[in-house]
């Protein structure tokens, strides 16, 4: 088991303890994570780095409740999410996690406004309130003038801003970003990183970002490296 990497346990929002993740592909057994421990404090901006196949995205999926560990515990805000039933886990994701994807994952048939509104369909908010909240989220990412545009009418950077607006519209506890600048040019990538930094600094959002780009990780408050399924090193910005 690797050493526990993180902040003081009391302030930790994310606690990953002794996590293994094994995939089976036919007869082949792929051990992606080995006894991994990690803590992430509230208000941290953590960059998770490592080479391809090191298990970064797998770890992010486990923290986001998109997948389950083969062994070990994952506690978010004091709740053991690895023990939640599928339906409860989906509800938990809707309430507590904002996801930002490398390829944006916007729905092409919906406008920016409607894309951002999607997670709010899981809340008891009335339609007018949902629209207002989506408009606020879009203004926070600087896209007030693009609310009625469809994804195909937006640049890559703008699409990722819509993706971030969608991730923050429910005011989640945790923002998980999987290579958020991986599909963008340097200028657009910098703008997205600046936006994430602002969300962390000005709004206190806890962010975990998977990246293999040192330029991107430099914006984080803490960087951890993952190699062959284990955390190997850490640096604080």
């Amino acid at each position: 088991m690797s050493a526990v990497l993180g902040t003081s346990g009391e302030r930790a929002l994310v606690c990953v303890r002794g996590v293994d993740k094994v995939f089976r592909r036919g007869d082949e057994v792929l051990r992606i994570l080995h006894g991994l421990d990690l803590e992430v404090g509230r208000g941290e901006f953590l960059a998770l780095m490592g080479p391809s196949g090191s298990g970064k995205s797998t770890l992010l999926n486990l923290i986001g409740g998109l997948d389950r560990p083969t062994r070990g515990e994952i506690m978010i805000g004091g709740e053991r999410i690895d023990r939640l039933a599928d339906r409860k886990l989906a509800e938990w994701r809707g309430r507590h996690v904002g996801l930002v994807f490398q390829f944006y994952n916007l729905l092409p048939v919906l406008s920016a406004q409607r894309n951002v509104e999607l997670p709010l369909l899981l809340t008891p908010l009335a339609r007018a309130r949902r629209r207002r909240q989506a408009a606020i989220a879009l203004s926070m990412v600087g896209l007030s003038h693009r609310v009625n545009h469809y994804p195909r009418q937006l640049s890559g950077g703008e699409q990722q801003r819509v993706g971030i607006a969608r991730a923050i519209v429910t005011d989640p506890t945790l923002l998980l970003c999987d290579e958020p600048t991986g599909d963008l040019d340097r200028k657009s990538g910098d703008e997205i990183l600046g936006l994430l930094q602002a969300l962390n600094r000005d709004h206190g959002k806890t962010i975990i970002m998977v990246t293999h780009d040192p330029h991107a990780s430099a914006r984080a408050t803490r960087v951890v490296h993952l190699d062959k399924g284990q955390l190997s090193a850490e640096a604080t910005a």
Partner: protein
Amino acid sequence: MRGWANWISQVGAMTRMGLSTVMERKGSSVATMFGIAGVVLVFVAVLSIGEGFRRTMVVSGDPGVAMVMRAGSDTEMMSIFGGRSVHWIADAPGIARSDQGPLVSAQLFVIINLPKRSSGTDANVPLRGVDARAFGVSDAVRIVAGRRFQPGRGEVIVGVGAARAFAGLDLGATLHVGRHQWKIVGFFEANGGLPESEIWTDAVVLQGAYERGNSYQSVLARLQSPEAFGRFREVLEADPRLNVKVVRQTDYFIEQSRTVYRVVTGLGVTIAALMAVGAVFGALNTMYTAVSARTREIATFRALGFGGGAVMVSVLAESLCLALIGGGVGGGLGYVIFDGFQAATMNWQSFSQVAFQLDVTPGLLFGGVAGALMIGLIGGVFPAVRAASLPVAMALRA
């Protein structure tokens, strides 16, 4: 309440996404819709034969008319009694009267062969011998061209259905049947009922032509009211001079339509069911393709917190929409093409042709669309389950 509203909003958002991408899979989607439309079209077409036949038989009957046949006879074909019996029957209570006396019509029924206009092949046509009182008993019958036949002469009047279906039945033409010649002097209608498939002549002339002596096969009696039937039957069936059975005319025709209706309905349902199996596989293929093409979108919804139930319902909704369109097209085409279409088929009870119009009823259309939705449901349920159980993390990378 708001929870349900939100769940419906989730399903709505996902269904909208699915439907808006149908055209990206237009090949399989259109094939599925046409497959389902074909099933409904065949279902509606075949069953409209049965419905049309039954309707013709049902409207032929009048609850105020009683039919008297020899006991043990299921049809007129099997019945016979002498002329004296007709007088005894006419004395029974409950019979309506006109200036000419009791409204009772003794009838004779023979089958002749005539070529069909459509194929030229011979088919059986009923030639019915009646007396003048038959027009008072069967008051739906009315001359629409020419005039009534004259008693004692070799004249006939032809039902409009028979005139449409069989060659040579033209006003003023002479009909050659065996050694006999009959002049066609009029056409008649009977509210679309069975008599329209018949040729009528004077019963006495027909008795002579076919050497039947003073015999008849049935007696129709118009009753003072439909309620008079019970007493009428009771008296006649108890009369020791007669050996008859009495049925209401409506019941007789409903019974006559039963065999053909069952055969046609069974055939239609069987053919449609076999086609439906193929259509289900088409729908399955389309919906599996749809789920496969939208794997990442579905995974995104799931990642955002949408439940598996909403995913399932949205896939099913898409499948049902395709089925509904297909069913609507099939039903609509069936109505336009087949409703009112003139046809003729064998009445197995009388071994004669019955001309009728195919009848695409609202019930048939409803049944066709319901069947289409069933195909959509079965075709959608397995892909829906697959969509709902996609591993989210893996599907996001698709």
